[in-house]
């Protein structure tokens, strides 16, 4: 139990280090953030398709609103653990990290959270331009929506990070695990609401897509924020279930993987 205590005590310091690191590489981080332009590219296509009218239940303003929120949620829930773990396992850089009293995953989680303020700073001019272009998209959510939205984004953040942990740990068995993660991300793009809002998917696959983890990791919080989900509490519960499932998988794989890593003698 003292292990947990050490991790909690170290958290504030780790967060400070993480933030300082991001500030040190601010230009690089900003460029990384700006590369996630896909929501804007998709917005251009959808809004040209709607062409002043509506598409399904979406007007042009709805599209702007949807992809603006997607852009933000995608940024605040993104991580780089899968690349880092893959690299560290392949090159053996993980070994010295394991000698520390802190779990390297915990370290990465703190860095990821530490990057959040910078992400928001870089995003704000883009959002400002979108709101300047379409002032009517700015809506003030109700207190309940705000609260549920924050919880949903938090769950999506944890889920996305855990999924990266799982795919990163696959590197213990299979070195090209980053390629597999790309498959996951294509699924998130298509079935999770990244390039197409859930309601505009072919209606036969919508019920299935709604319970899959891809939606919980990205589309769900967007819908909660926009008050566009029939039952927000059910959405949150489903997200929590997926978090629990991936957390179990990650915990299991970490134990098994480390044993294998040691066995190779790297």
């Amino acid at each position: 139990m003292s292990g947990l205590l050490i991790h909690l005590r170290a958290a504030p310091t780790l967060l400070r280090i993480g933030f300082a690191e991001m500030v040190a590489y601010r230009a690089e981080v900003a460029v990384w953030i700006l590369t996630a332009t896909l929501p804007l590219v998709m917005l251009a296509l959808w809004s040209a398709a709607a062409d002043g009218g509506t598409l399904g239940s979406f007007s042009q303003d709805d599209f702007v609103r949807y992809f603006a929120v997607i852009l933000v949620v995608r940024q605040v829930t993104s991580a780089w653990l899968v690349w880092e773990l893959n690299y560290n396992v392949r090159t053996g850089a993980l070994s010295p990290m394991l000698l520390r009293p802190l779990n390297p995953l915990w370290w990465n989680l703190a860095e990821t959270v530490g990057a959040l303020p910078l992400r928001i700073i870089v995003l704000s001019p883009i959002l400002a331009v979108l709101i300047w272009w379409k002032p009517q998209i700015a809506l003030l959510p109700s207190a309940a929506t705000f609260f549920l939205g924050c919880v949903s984004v938090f769950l999506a953040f944890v889920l996305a990070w855990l999924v990266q942990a799982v795919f990163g740990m696959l590197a213990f068995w299979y070195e090209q695990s980053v390629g597999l993660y790309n498959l996951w991300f294509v699924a998130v793009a298509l079935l999770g609401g990244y390039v197409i809002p859930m309601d505009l998917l072919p209606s036969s696959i919508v019920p299935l897509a709604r319970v899959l983890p891809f939606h919980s990791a990205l589309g769900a919080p967007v819908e909660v924020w926009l008050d566009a989900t029939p039952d927000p509490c059910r959405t949150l519960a489903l997200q929590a279930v997926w978090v629990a499932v991936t957390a179990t998988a990650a915990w299991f794989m970490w134990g098994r993987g480390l044993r294998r890593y040691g066995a190779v003698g790297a």
Partner: protein
Amino acid sequence: MRELRLIAALARVALMNAAQYRASFLVDLVTGAVSTVGIVLPLALVYNHTERIAGWSFHESLLVTGFFLLLQGAVGLAVEPNLSAIVEGVRSGALDYLVLKPVDAQLVASMQRIAPAKIWHLLAGVGVVLWGLSALPSPSLVASLTAVVLFVVGLFATYALWVLVICTSFWFVKVDNLSYLLVAVVDAGRWPVTVYKGWVRLFLTVVIPVAMVTSYPALALLGRLGPWLAVQGVVVAIVLLVISRVAWLLALSRYTSASS
């Protein structure tokens, strides 16, 4: 003539280097196929709800997406690996060995490496263009030739842009991220350029002329490209090539190696 022999020799060495990694060639086949699906399927899903977008039908848009895949393939195959090698050379000083050779440094630097796995993107691009054409009246010979020429010219323009980005590495050293940003902007070329409005469209036609590489050849195949636009495409490419050449020479004259 000497340059042509040099190009052939460089291409052979690059191919031999790349052929060493056979397993990753196959893994990239899967990744390439999935990313193609990730690019084409959203288009199909949007067209599920409407017949035409910004004046383009689904099969017409497929032509643009096909050329976009070809562009991605060509850049990934031959442009991007070389230019990241140059950035690395500037940082580590390995560029010394290159500038000492009695040949044009830009030519050699641009042809050192090749990533053959990107051939899958090229094949996918050809497939998507053919898919689009299958539901459209077949283009005339002149139209097809114009499309090919415009696409190749556009590739040179893209190469010039990459060289410009790389040139900044002689001043700022660490610019590999900047090339990712360029990739992100080029991403906008996957849809017909009329999807974009106002200054965004202008930006994508003139500054980062990705529309020229993807939309113009598609328009040419459809017989809708005026001669004026074709000329404009060629002019933009030439201007970019000249600027990039000047920038390269200027940047090289500033190269101080890593140790001194």
